[in-house]
């Protein structure tokens, strides 16, 4: 049981703002920390106190354990909320907090350690009876023995070099006919690439959906789940759109997945809020049992508050940060499993500073104009303001826009409408890309899997980049001329001084330069 009378938030941006708001709601004094780049950031201005913790690079500020513990000591904070990212899943940090007599708002260090190791976490899942992706490395590496383990794992299978990584040398085997030849070829390739022909056999899940379960556990033996979030719209393992409920789940499947997540949390001795991630194989839901009996497999546990936690809050009506603080104080969970329910639908989109037309390149720069939409069913979690800046040092997340409604379609339409009224100027963003994702027929139909953006991304990108219209040019012209005639005359005079050398393609020396605008999509 921990003391929580003043909370230091060891983070920045939207999640720091989110946690500080919860502290204020609960009447708990908050302490923000900031690097030099964030001296006037919203989380700093919102907190009751703020402590500078170093220069802009995260290693010297938000990731420095001694500096953050010092800030807690100096400010008198007796609890630390780590947010997500940075030190949130760092077992050494959780232990250092405990050693310093500071309550870490999250699971204990040894739980973070156990679940942070893929092998240990898989073992915990198996012990708890939670399915993992079938597979293994046979001690006998003869072709016959590997073929036997492929048959027991079930087709289609993936043969992976045990020594490998990054997808090199992986081979898909769909049926018995190509099995023996495929094993020999995979072994040759593994030997050539890694000097080791040992093969790992794993069931191939062809079009998986990413479905995760929110859990919260207290010190009194209570563990509940708060249903699922579907995060299949992702690229390079970065989530882009998240929602709940999942369109793939039936009540029976939801219960099976929730029970599995709770069993795993109990087996791991879990405390506080966490998320159990699963791969769901929709192809296993085509039989007589339908999706009720579909197969899902344990992926990993995120031992922290997730970026996408607001969609769960919108449909269950709970406040997960309040719950985290209550659990850290040693209080019992405020809800029993039976009192929790999903109502309506919520969709979150992540608004990033990035350029969809250039490989989603992160963008840094000033927010010259930034206006958040305010309309029914919209929540925006952000940590920026107009006049602020997206720094090269940190994550390019600008804000999360969460829309809810009675049905999925209403939530989706609300998200689109809000994005259409969300001007962010001075930096390129993915706003128009997000609109096209939400309007894509497959997304509208709920027909998504983790390869959705790999398959549809190019078409979505092309649609999100329309040509410059006359209306856009009219606005641009109005902006230039609104800057008073002075600048116009100055430009004219400089053209005259050049002796009319700007004549030609621009329409002559006396042409108003703002009359001939060139546009490109931002």
């Amino acid at each position: 049981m921990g003391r929580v009378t003043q909370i230091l938030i060891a983070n920045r941006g939207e999640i720091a703002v989110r946690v500080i708001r919860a502290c204020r709601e609960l009447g708990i004094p908050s302490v923000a920390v900031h690097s030099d780049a964030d001296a006037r950031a919203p989380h700093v201005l919102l907190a009751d106190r703020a402590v500078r913790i170093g220069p802009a690079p995260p290693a010297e500020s938000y990731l420095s354990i001694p500096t953050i513990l010092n800030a807690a000591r100096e400010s008198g904070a007796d609890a630390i909320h780590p947010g997500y990212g940075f030190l949130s899943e760092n077992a050494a940090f959780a232990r250092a907090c405990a050693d310093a007599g500071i309550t870490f708002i999250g699971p204990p260090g040894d739980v973070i350690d156990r679940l942070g190791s893929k092998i240990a976490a898989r073992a915990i899942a198996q012990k708890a009876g939670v399915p993992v992706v079938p597979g293994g490395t046979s001690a006998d590496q003869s072709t016959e023995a590997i073929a036997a383990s492929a048959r027991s794992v079930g087709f289609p299978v993936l043969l992976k070099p045990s020594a490998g990584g990054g997808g090199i040398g992986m081979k898909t085997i769909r049926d018995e006919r190509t099995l023996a030849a495929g094993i020999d070829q995979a072994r040759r390739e593994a030997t050539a690439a890694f000097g080791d022909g040992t093969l790992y056999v794993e069931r191939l899940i062809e079009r998986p959906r990413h479905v995760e379960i929110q859990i919260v556990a207290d010190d009194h033996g209570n563990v509940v789940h708060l249903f699922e979030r579907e995060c299949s719209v992702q690229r390079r393992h970065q989530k882009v759109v998240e929602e709940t409920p999942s369109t793939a789940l039936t009540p029976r499947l939801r219960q099976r997945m929730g029970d599995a997540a709770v069993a795993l949390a109990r087996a791991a001795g879990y405390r506080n809020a966490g998320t159990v991630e699963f791969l769901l194989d929709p192809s296993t839901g085509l039989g007589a049992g339908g999706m009720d009996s579909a197969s899902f497999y344990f992926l990993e546990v995120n031992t922290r508050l997730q970026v996408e936690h607001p969609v769960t809050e919108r449909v269950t009506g709970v406040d997960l940060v309040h719950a985290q603080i209550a659990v850290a104080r040693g209080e019992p969970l405020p809800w029993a499993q039976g009192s929790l329910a999903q109502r309506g639908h919520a969709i979150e989109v992540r608004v990033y500073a990035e350029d969809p037309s250039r490989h989603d390149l992160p963008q840094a720069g000033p927010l010259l104009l930034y206006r958040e939409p305010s309309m029914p069913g919209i929540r925006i979690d952000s940590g920026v303001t107009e006049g602020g800046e997206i720094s090269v040092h940190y994550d390019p997340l600008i804000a999360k826009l969460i829309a809810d409604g009675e049905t999925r379609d209403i939530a989706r339409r609300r998200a689109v409408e809000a994005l259409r009224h969300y001007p962010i100027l001075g930096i390129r963003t993915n706003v128009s890309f997000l609109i096209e994702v939400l309007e894509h027929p497959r997304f509208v139909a709920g027909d998504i899997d983790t390869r959705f953006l790999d398959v549809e991304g190019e078409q979505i990108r092309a649609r999100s980049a329309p040509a410059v219209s006359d209306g856009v040019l009219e606005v641009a012209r109005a902006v230039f001329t609104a800057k008073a005639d002075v600048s116009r005359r100055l430009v004219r005079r400089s053209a005259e001084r050049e002796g009319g050398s700007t004549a030609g393609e621009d329409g002559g020396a006396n042409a108003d330069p703002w009359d001939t605008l060139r546009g490109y999509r931002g």
Partner: protein
Amino acid sequence: MADALGNGRYLVSGRIAYAVREKGRVWVFIDGRTYVVESNDRDAPDRVHVTDDQVALAAPMPATVIAIKVAPGQAVAAGDLLVLLEAMKMELPITAPRAGRVTSLACREGELVQPGIPLLELD
């Protein structure tokens, strides 16, 4: 002509647009789309002339070089991966803007590079 409504808002064809000027260009937002409009004026003080290669072969922001995938003398095709950078927790691939031959490298693996400076030269 669009009407200025104040505070960055404009009325055009019955719709509200948002716009802001940044030196020689204007950012415009209408109906969920963002555009950048540049003046054609050659004397605009902020206009910087750069070649396409300079843009394409430089880091778009301060970044760390993770891997250099080519060597001097090597022929590359348009779209080939040349250098892999990392910034803001993301990998940034620098690809060949055109076919050519690498004449020299101007960065090392592990180096922190600044934007605007080409990381290598193509002939």
